[in-house]
């Protein structure tokens, strides 16, 4: 499974304290999401762009991610410019393009891409396990933190099981079509995955008990803020506040 593809790198962006990354990304996302000025949102793009360049991420791969994600936005472009009431700036037969709608569609597009780029720049450059460790230091409930750990760990096991089952189906001449046989086959695949996962979870619990589990989890990882982390946290938060007050 091609995941965590941006997390291997050794730029200073990769090495930032994950707690800083999470807080900065959250604050930035909220500030941008709630802003309604096109110019301000456009300026907000600077920060993720700078970070992505500093992280030396593969530009083509970043663009590919953006392209996939923008599908939903494209859907809105099919509606907003034509149906939002407002000043008509162009008409072609029954279709009229409204200024307000166009503005709104553009605004949403910029907002969305700005936040997504920020997520790629800061969060995707860390491993999930690192981020979750950081979450445990950010007042996220213990149970939720461990849900993340276990879930991500077993995604890999189950993905392999899934892959092997799909291969077994292919091996027996299965070709997906639009018919009942196909849906039934996929359902069996899903059912099998669920049952095996359920039983695996029982065995995992047994293994935990055998190692003295007493309803308490310990976290071995601790982070130390370096000067650089403070610097980035400070400057990005300042940037976000500037965006918030800018008119």
């Amino acid at each position, binding site marked *: 499974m091609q995941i965590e593809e941006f997390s291997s790198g050794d730029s200073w962006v990769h090495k930032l304290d994950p707690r800083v990354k999470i807080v900065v990304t959250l604050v930035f996302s909220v500030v941008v999401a*709630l802003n309604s000025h096109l110019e301000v949102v456009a300026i907000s793009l600077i920060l993720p762009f700078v970070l992505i360049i500093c992280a030396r991420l593969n530009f083509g791969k970043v663009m590919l991610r953006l392209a996939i994600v923008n599908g939903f936005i494209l859907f809105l472009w099919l509606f907003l410019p034509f149906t939002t009431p407002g000043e008509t700036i162009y008409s072609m037969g029954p279709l009229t393009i409204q200024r307000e709608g166009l503005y709104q569609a553009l605004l949403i597009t910029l*907002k969305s891409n700005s936040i997504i780029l920020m997520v790629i720049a800061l969060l995707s450059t860390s491993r999930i396990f690192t981020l979750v460790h950081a979450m445990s230091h950010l007042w996220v409930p213990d149970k939720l933190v461990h849900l993340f750990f276990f879930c991500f760990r077993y995604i890999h096991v189950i993905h392999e099981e899934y892959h092997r089952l799909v291969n077994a189906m292919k091996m027996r001449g299965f070709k997906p079509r639009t018919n009942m046989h196909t849906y039934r086959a996929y359902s069996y695949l899903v059912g099998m995955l669920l049952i095996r996962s359920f039983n695996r979870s029982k065995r995992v619990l047994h293994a935990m008990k055998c190692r003295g589990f007493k309803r308490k989890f310990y976290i071995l990882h601790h982070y130390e803020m370096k000067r650089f982390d403070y610097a980035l946290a400070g400057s990005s938060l300042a940037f976000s506040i500037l965006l918030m007050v800018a008119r």
Partner: protein
Amino acid sequence: MHISEGVLSAPVLGGGAALTFAGLAIGLRKMDYEKLPEVAVLSSAFFIASLIHVPIGPSAAHLILNGICGALLGWMAFPAIFVGLTLQAVLFEFGGLTSLGVNTFNMAFPAVAMGYFCRYFIRSPSLPVRVVSEFITGAGAILLSGLLVAACLVLALGESMDSAAKLVILAHIPIMIIEGLITVFVIEFILKVQPEMLPGTSGVSR
């Protein structure tokens, strides 16, 4: 199904976050430490299942399966779906961080509602009753999710989204049918192979 970043307005985002927060609180309270591995490994399984694309005519749709998720996990579907969506947001940038609350609620609330509906009928010894209610579980969860997504769009972007909202719901119809069928087969599969996995059947309440 996912609403992207930057689309929704502050009240919708805030409302979604608050509702999801409440759902998570209930779900986490019901999930004691003994249950944690089960919820976690099942949410990994749902994560993987959502990567499966099934053909619908010339196109294809990926599975969502929130009806089955609700039937298996009840309120614990909230944390399970939240974890799955967060991982998708960070790993693939599907959905997003600010819309995480709304997206979780849109999928998890129908899961819980239809899950309880399903648990009620699943004890029936009559195959037709079970099949019909399982179909309704799968299809209904998708319908509810589609309605919620459409409502969010209208609430955030105004009346002008009416036609888009209708299209969202229309687009969900084939997916509803597929999910309904798959839910029937999957739950019948589980009933045959390992019925104790379904809470409604063994009388274990969660």
